[in-house]
Structure formats: C-alpha cells, structure tokens
C-alpha cells in the first residue's frame, strides 16, 4: 500500500450507480446518458444523498432509479415544477431533472418556459428520441413532419418542436446538446450544465433502438455529429447559438450552444437576500396574529 498527499477523488462514477437493472431495450441511448451522468456527478463529487433527481413518465424517466441519489419518478410532464419546489425549499441540494421529449415538450411543455425565466439553479436533461417508446411507437412532439407511426398512419401533419430554439428564445442562460455517440463530450456538457449557476438545459439525442428511425441511431450519430467547438462557435453569442439551433432535426451539433458569460443571480440567491432583509424585523411566529388586532 502506498500513501500519497495528492487529493484523491472522493467519489467515482460507480458510487452513483444503483443496483436496479434498467428496463431499457438493449442498445437504448439512455444507457449512455446514465453513464455520462455518473461520470459528471463523480467529477463534481457531491455525495449521492445531497442530490435530488426528479423525472416524469416515459422510458427515460426511469433514470433516477438507476442512480444512488434521492429520486422522484413523478407524473407525466410535471418533473420541472416538482424539482423547482425542491430547489426553492432546499437550495443546498444539487437538483437534476430528466425526462423524454414528450414529457418536456408535449404534456409538460408549458412548464419549460417558466423554469427558464424562474432561473432556479437546476439542470434539465431531455432524452430526445423523437418517438414515444414506452407506449410503443407513437408520434412525439419532436418527431419530424411526415413521420409514419402507429398514430400517424399516413404521416404526421405537424412540424416538430425545436427544443433548442424553444429554450433559447425564452432566455435560457445555458443550452447544450449531446449524444451517447460521444460519451466524453456528453459527460462534459452535463458536468458544465450542473456547474452553471442557474437553470441549464441539455438536449441529448438519445436514440430509440426499437421504434426510432435508422438515421437516428448511434452509428449514424457518430458519422454525422459536429462539435460546436470545432466549428469555431462562440458559446457567449446568443444570436449565433439561435442560428445554429435552427439546424435542429437536420444537423447534429454537439457541445454548448450558449452559456451566458455573466449569469444573472439565481432565484435561490434572490430569495435568500429577501429572507435575510425581511427576517431582521419580523415578530416571532407566535405573534403572527397580532396584526389583526384593532388598535
């Protein structure tokens, strides 16, 4: 046994892996996502019990159970409100939210804009596979127009939602995209998102091996993905990010689209400030009814 003075990492990726066996199909992109999350969490080094991991419903929403963190596999589309409640109530926690494209941009779509503008310090990871997998292959909000599925026998009539443009348009301060085809890059953007002070969003192109299209599989990702850094994109340029985000569905860009170099204070910081100012001259709880006395 040798001893060393160099600081050792306190946690390793395996410390975040639970004993539950995933229900995902062999080859599912979500295996890569959960691996990337283990790596990102190990790099950050917060103990599992200080992490709250919230999800909605769908294949990908099973993900908290595959970690050793506190998990909350809630109801369809409502992961974001629940996660924000956790973060406001307990700001010291590391709060992660994950789900699928249906959870985030269909049934829960109304919550995304408000999570962005509320700017609590949480990280939202969407596993975007352009299909409803758990219910066996129906149209999703990010399915390309014209897609034939069991609920669009003759091809879908609607345009796809563009998740990247959506959150950028609402003013998100951290927006990135990854794919399990690039594990190192995916772990890196997830880590950067968690470290970012404020609401951060990572869209993961996570292929569905069972119901997904051929051109959306990992093999194809590997061949077509383009690193934003290598393209010379400046991640502090929101307009350039929005320009690139328009290519969603046509080109697969990986890395950070936008990271506000001067992030505004988080909602948690603002709340803390308000609590400090107002608690100074507050009567004790036991005197809360005194204000109603007629004097």
């Amino acid at each position, binding site marked *: 046994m040798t001893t060393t003075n160099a600081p050792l990492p306190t946690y390793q990726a395996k410390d975040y892996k639970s004993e*539950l066996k995933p229900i995902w199909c062999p080859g599912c992109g979500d295996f890569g996502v959960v691996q990337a999350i283990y790596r990102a969490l190990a790099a950050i080094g917060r*103990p*599992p*019990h*200080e*992490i*709250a991991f*919230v999800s909605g*419903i769908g294949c990908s929403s*099973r993900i*908290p*159970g595959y970690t*050793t*963190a*506190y*998990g*909350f*596999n*809630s*109801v369809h589309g*409502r992961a*974001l*409100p*629940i*996660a*924000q*409640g*956790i*973060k*406001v*109530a*307990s700001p*010291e*926690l590391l709060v992660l939210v994950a789900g699928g494209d249906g959870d985030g941009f269909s049934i829960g779509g*109304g*919550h995304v*804009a*408000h999570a962005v503008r*509320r700017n609590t310090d949480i990280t939202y990871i969407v596993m975007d596979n352009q299909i409803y997998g758990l219910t066996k292959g129906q149209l999703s909000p990010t399915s390309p127009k014209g897609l034939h599925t069991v609920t669009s026998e003759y091809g879908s009539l609607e345009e796809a939602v563009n998740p990247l443009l959506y959150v950028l348009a609402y003013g998100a301060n951290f927006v990135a995209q990854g794919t399990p085809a690039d594990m190192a890059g995916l772990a890196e953007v997830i880590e950067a998102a968690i470290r970012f002070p404020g609401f951060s969003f990572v869209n993961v192109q996570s292929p569905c091996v069972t119901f997904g299209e051929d051109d959306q599989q990992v093999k194809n990702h590997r061949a077509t993905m383009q690193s934003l850094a290598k393209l010379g994109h400046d991640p502090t340029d929101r307009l350039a990010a929005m320009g690139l985000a328009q290519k969603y569905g046509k080109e697969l860009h990986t890395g950070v689209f936008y990271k506000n170099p001067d992030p505004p204070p988080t909602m948690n910081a603002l*709340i803390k400030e*308000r*609590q400090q100012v*107002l*608690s100074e001259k*507050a009567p004790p*709880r*036991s*005197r*809360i*009814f005194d*204000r*109603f*006395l*007629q*004097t």
Partner: protein
Amino acid sequence: MGMAGSGGDGIVSAGESLISAAAYEGYHAMMTKSFGSQVRGGESSCRVRLSTARVQNPGGTLDVAIALNWEDFLKFGAELPVSGDTVVIYDSKTGVEPGQIPLVGVTPKEVFAVPIGEMARRAAGTDKAKNSVVLGLIAGWFGIAPGSIVRGLNKKFAKKGPELLAANERAFHLGEEFAKEHPLATPRAMAPPTSSGSKMLTDGNDMCAAAAILAGCEFFGGYPITPSTEIMQFFTREVWKYGGAVVQAEDEIASIGAALGASFAGKKAMTATSGPGMALKTEILGLATIAELPLVIVNVQRGGPSTGLPTKPEQSDLFQAAFSASGDVLRPILAPTSVADTVDVTVEAFNIAEHYQTPVILLSDQEIAQRKETVDPIDTSRFTFIERKRPTAVDLQSYARFRMTEDGISPISHPGMKGGNYQGAGIEHNEQGNPTASGKVHAAMNAKRFRKLAPLQRRRDLFRIDGDPDAPFALVSWGSIAGVCREAYLRATAEGLAVKLLVPWLVYPVAEEIYREFFGSVRAGLVVEASHQGQLYRILRMYVDVPRGVTSFARDGANPIQPGDVVERLRAAALALQSPPSAQQIACEE
C-alpha cells in the same frame, strides 16, 4: 344591517369602518360583502351584524336596510331581505316617495328618505363623502360607537391631509344630526359591549395563511383564483420573514407540484385554490397519496360547476375532494366553520398531513374565507405542532422508505439525509421505493395507505356535538352553514324542541362510529348544507345507516340559508313524526 350602492359609493368601505369601530369597542361583529361580477364599478353591498354575544352567522332579515339607490339594492335579492321589522334608509335623490319604495310584499317598520348625496356635497363638496354621512346616520339612530367611528375615519384618512379629514368628519356629524332631528318612532340602540378590550378583525383567508405560517409552513405554491387568492397574497408578504418562500406558478398543476417538491425536500408545504383549480390539481394529489408525502391543499369553495359563481359561497366540492382521483384513495378533508376556527383547522390540517404523511384537503368556502369577523386574541401556546416521523440512526442502517409497519406510518427521510436515499414515485413500489407490478405488493401498499388513516375516525375532538345525547331531533351541518345551524339549534332548544347538533371539522373519512352513536337516539332531523345535491348527506348515507326521518336540507349556493329556515323545517319534521308519513312523503324524501 345591510347596505347597497354602486361601486363608487364606498358602501363596503362604510361597512369596514363600522365593523372596525365595533371591534375596537369590544363588540362581536361579522361582515359579509357581495359584489356584482364587474372588476370595478357595478353594484356592491355588505351586511354587518353586531352583537354583545358571539356572532355565528351573517343573520336573516335586516334590522336596518340602507339603499344608496334602489336599482343596486334590489339586485342583491335574498342576500338583503327586508321584513316588517326593518328600518329602511335611502337616498332621497332617487325621487322615490317613502310610501312608494320598490319592495314587493313587505311594509317596513319605518322608512326614511335622507338627502345623503346632498349632505355629502354640503359637508365635503363631493359625493365621495356619502359613506361618512351613512356612518353618521347609523351612529345617530342606533348609538353605535360614534367616538370610535370618528377615530377610525381619522386613522383611515390620516395620510390624505387635514382638509379631507375635516370634511369627512363634517359629513359624519351632518348624518348624526339628521338622525337626532328625525328620531325613530320606536327607539333602538345597541347595548354597550359586555366584554371590554379590542378584538381582532380578520377573515378566513388571512387566518388560514397566518395559521399555516404559525404551524411551520415554509413553502407556498399558488396560482391566483377567486376566492382563495388572499391566502397567497398573505404568504407573499409574510413567509420570507420566517425563512420560507412563495412561488406563484405558471398554473394550478405547477403550484401543487412545487409544493409537493418542497414537501419531498422535507418542508411543510401548502397550496390553495378553488374548485376549478382543484380539478387541475387532482393529478398531483394522487401522486402525494401514493408517494406518502404530507401536503395541505386549501379549496375555498365557490359556486360551480366550472367557472360557476366565482364570488359566491357553495359547498358543492365535497364529492370532488373526496372522490376525484384515479385509483383507491383516502385523503382527509377538514372544514372550518368560522373565521376563528379556521386557525384550529389549519393547524390540524398540517398536523394530520405530517403525522400520517398524506395530502389533507382544507375545504373552506367563500363566505368564511372573505367575511370579516371579530375574533378574541389567540393564545398560540395552546397549539401543538406535529412533525413527520424521521428515521432514527438504526432505521438508516437498512433504510426502507415504505417499510411495512403496524400503524402504516413509515419513517420518512428527505434529500440531504445521509443513508435515507430512496426513490419517491407515482408508480407502485415496494418497501424500498422501487417500481413493482406485483399484485401482492400493490394490495399490501393500498392496505397500508388506508390503515394509517383509520385512527382519524376516532378523533372525537374533531367533532362538536351539542345538546342532550338522547334528543330525538338532530341537526348536522358543516362549513359556513354550521354557524347558521348553531343559531337554529339555540332557537329550537329555546322553543322547547329536544334537538342536538353535530358539526364535523373532519368531514371525510366519515367517522362511522361517531355518527352511529349520534344517530342512535334520533328519529328526525336535517343535514343542512349549501349545495344542490346535499353532498354531505349523500356521503353519510354511503357509510352510515342514517335514520329514515333525517333528510337533506340543501340549497344551492348564493341563496343564503337562514336560521329561521332551519327551525321551520325542524318543526315540520317534529310534527310529521307525530302523524305517520304517507307513502308519497316517503317517496319525496328519497
């Protein structure tokens, strides 16, 4: 006393000044307001009831009716009923002669046409002082707290400068002098208050929010909806001072979602809404039940269905509260019966939620929530506050969040607690919290979730029962209507009718044993509530053998039930007992 006018007449403001002065003097008082549906302007009215004893309800027919114009007054119909004992005062500018006032089928005791507007302009140069003239008239004719009214007016207008202050005082005195120059044929004056010392003056929404903070609530998630919004408003002013926070969410679902998240994080949390919002919250309510998380949900009921009557009270959301869920769900429902006991019921709601790890619905209604009532100062040391059962160090060595226990209550950890890590879920789960589709586990978990709430049904302290236990006649009522029934009970008892009264704070689950015992001696009676269907009556019949002679007296919301109505029906029920009912009558009861 009932008064009505147009939005700009300040009639509600006059009521507020009056009740505030009365509270300061030590009178018991209650004030209800009623408006048309306009945001500004339109008709508005208020009822003020003053007494030297506790006021149980807004009362029946008016002793004093004040109409600034008849068109507005008449819009309130049954909310401002005039009888042969009423003194009617109205603004003579309406051009209506005292003998020609537009009240159908009733001759008031005395009628005064008073140039209210003209007096306001004379004293203050503006119509806006009409409410001060009205207050002067009231003080002059009925001897109610003139000193305290003037004091209150001075306080209210202190910031508006000495000129306005003097003008309002002149208007008040003009009214007072008019009353003295035109005395009542039968003088009526308020007796002096029996208790000395100022009282609190507040409404159910403010009391609910204040009591929640007292109970340790640190998170409120809300979305504006009439008539519950004042609860969120109170939180946004106060909760930060106690280390808590409010989120005004993007919708009703997100507001209860955020509150549930806060509870998952280990904090006491609450949300408030009204019927239509409750419909949206149903999904997360189910999640709270299966995830066994404490949560208090306030529904300030209004007339329904759908948008219904947003500004009027009704008790028609009981079925929704009890049954609106997917799956087998049992969640406690508590109902306050007055502004004062809203405090007790709110503290109890938190205690039950925390102790049993369950969502609790606090079913208030528009009347209790928004009426102003005098309340004696509260000694907060009389309350006990229960915290959820936390795992011990031993529990944490091999922690199972949903461990099967005899009482069904498993120690609950929260993020940040080392060793307590678990998966909360809407999906059925085993003791560890991991998903399962096992029928055996599902049945055991359902049984656990029901078993833990069983002791609630034996909580006699959540019921108030008055009267001779052997009485053959009975009244059962809940929520704001309970105050009406309490007065009816007192009147009927004074008439010599052997009646008893049961009022539950715990409305659901139905405490079968307590009702069975109560109904044991009963041959006839009424379950009184403000809804079309008589929802409590029907729920009672699901669980208890309600005696055949006990019938439902249910009236749609916004059509006030008065103590006299209840006494009358009780008398009829007593008479019917003496002669056996015909087959036709039995059919009607069904």
